[in-house]
């Protein structure tokens, strides 16, 4: 029974991880930016949500909407003011990474100054659980997570297949050489990539603020899991990133069966190292050697 419960929990966690991972993959795939600040987006959403809902007592749906909008603004602003200037000057992968990392450090410590370094969370009735039979419990938030994930992925599926921007983004992810040759404005494309990619992080942050609580340094784990999922799923495959996120969520949850919670958090990174060792192209990677 414990196993099934952990499986269910893992699916909920995996749904959120999948969203984060696909968000990262969309950004990296189409702009080739190692967006370490993806984790910062997550933290910003969480703290804005917390501030608006808890401190200013705004209705939760409004706070959530504003927080999600903040994610989009942050992502697009970074692209415009930090990444693009660097890439214009032929910045390398590592230059962009260090800049992104620096943003993360600045944001994290600003949050520490204004909110303190310990956990913040919001209490909400949505964390209540209900028994779905067989002694397995699911929280409303858990169901919410899966529902939102399904909705967003359905939307993404349509968007990436049927709209000009979406098709371009997907094509770029799989074939970075197309960047030059494409008809669409590359600047507009990267804006879309960062907007969508950042938005996808929001559900995970909102849920975490209610359930586990949030700390300023949570961003590091978030971006690493997103990267790990992208590598496991295969660089260049958006579906792969989602699948990778799901796998990591399940793995982390099931690991609790044998390990304590603290150790289970390391499981994702051990899987990451294993994949880099054995199969760097991932499960659905489009290239054997990147």
């Amino acid at each position, binding site marked *: 029974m414990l196993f099934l419960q952990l499986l269910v929990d893992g699916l909920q966690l995996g749904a959120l991880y999948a969203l984060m991972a696909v968000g990262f993959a969309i950004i990296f795939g189409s702009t080739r930016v190692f967006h370490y600040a993806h984790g910062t987006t997550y933290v910003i959403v969480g703290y804005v949500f917390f501030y608006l809902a808890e401190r200013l007592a705004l209705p939760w749906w409004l706070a959530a909407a504003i927080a999600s909008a903040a994610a989009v603004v942050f992502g697009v602003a970074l692209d415009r003011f930090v990444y693009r200037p660097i890439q214009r000057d032929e910045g*390398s992968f590592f230059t962009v990474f260090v800049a992104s990392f620096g943003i993360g450090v600045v944001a994290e410590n600003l949050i520490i100054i204004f909110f303190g370094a310990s956990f913040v969370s919001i209490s909400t009735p949505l964390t209540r659980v209900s028994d779905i039979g067989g002694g397995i419990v699911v929280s409303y938030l858990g169901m919410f997570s899966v529902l939102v994930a399904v909705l967003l992925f359905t939307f993404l599926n349509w968007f990436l297949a049927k709209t000009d921007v979406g098709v371009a983004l997907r094509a770029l992810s799989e074939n970075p050489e197309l960047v030059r040759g494409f008809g669409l404005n590359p600047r507009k494309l990267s804006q879309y990539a960062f907007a969508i990619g950042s938005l996808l992080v929001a559900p995970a942050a909102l849920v975490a603020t209610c359930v586990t609580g949030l700390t300023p340094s949570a961003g590091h784990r978030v971006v690493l899991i997103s990267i790990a999922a992208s590598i496991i799923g295969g660089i260049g495959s958006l579906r792969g990133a989602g699948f990778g996120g799901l796998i990591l969520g399940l793995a982390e949850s099931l690991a609790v069966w044998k390990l304590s919670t603290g150790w289970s958090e390391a499981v994702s990174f051990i899987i990451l190292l294993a994949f880099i060792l054995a199969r760097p192209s991932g499960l659905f990677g489009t290239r054997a050697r990147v």
Partner: protein
Amino acid sequence: MVGYILNLLILVSISGILAGSLNFIIGYAGIYSMAHAAFFGVSAYTAALIAMNLSTSLLVAIPAAMAICAALSLVISLPSLRVRGEYFVVASLGLQQIAFTVFSEWKDVTGGLGGITGVPVATLFGYKLRSLGSMLTVSLVCLALVTLVIYVLVRTSFGRNLKAIRDNEVAASAFGKNATAIKTIAVAISSALCGIAGVLYAFHVSFVNPESFTVDASVLIMAMIIIGGTGTVFGPILGALIIHLLPAGLTYLTFLPARELASLQQIIYGAAMVLLMIYRPSGLIGRSNVKDTWTR
């Protein structure tokens, strides 16, 4: 006052070793490792455990820590360096996280979040390094030796190999260089040298806990390299000095809230990283990629 200065200089020496060993791979080889704090921690814990269970002699702790760090570096370099450098960054980030988890969760060995306290005084040839002065002497000697090793390596064929790979790996391979092997060895050397710093740290502050070896520590070490300059062997030491003097300087700006000084420091370094990456096209690698047209 004297004690304060001696303590500061010891910490600067230790940081100088950390920054110098990291600059060896970032500045000279273009290999970006984010796991330096993890190696620092592993060697500190190793030293603490050896001191409490085996021997307090530096001549035991230092080689042991160096060996363990070098071996550990292979965990991330062997899989990722044969693929691409970008994977190495990711692997190093992963190792940093795993290391922190190990430090916090392996309570039987590391003491969990509380860490290991009461590390005995270090000894050298039987002589107890009880005073700050003796500890400083040893630290300075270690710093000098590490800097000398790096200086020599950089000026020999190994240094040229690293720079060749950094400048143009395709050409380096085309001329017969084994890029993967060279990078793996460089990372192992860097980690081993970093291990010396961990040993000194554990004995000096006489306790180790996970808090000292987080991403924040990696940020500080990076900042030392960036501020001090990556193109020379002495730059990182200068950076270490500045980084350690900054908090002291900040306390004179009394309008700044004392509680937040650590965070303010991190903000300054983070902002410096971002601005430097935007406005200095060559990024972290010391010298400019821009042609000096006036030197012709």
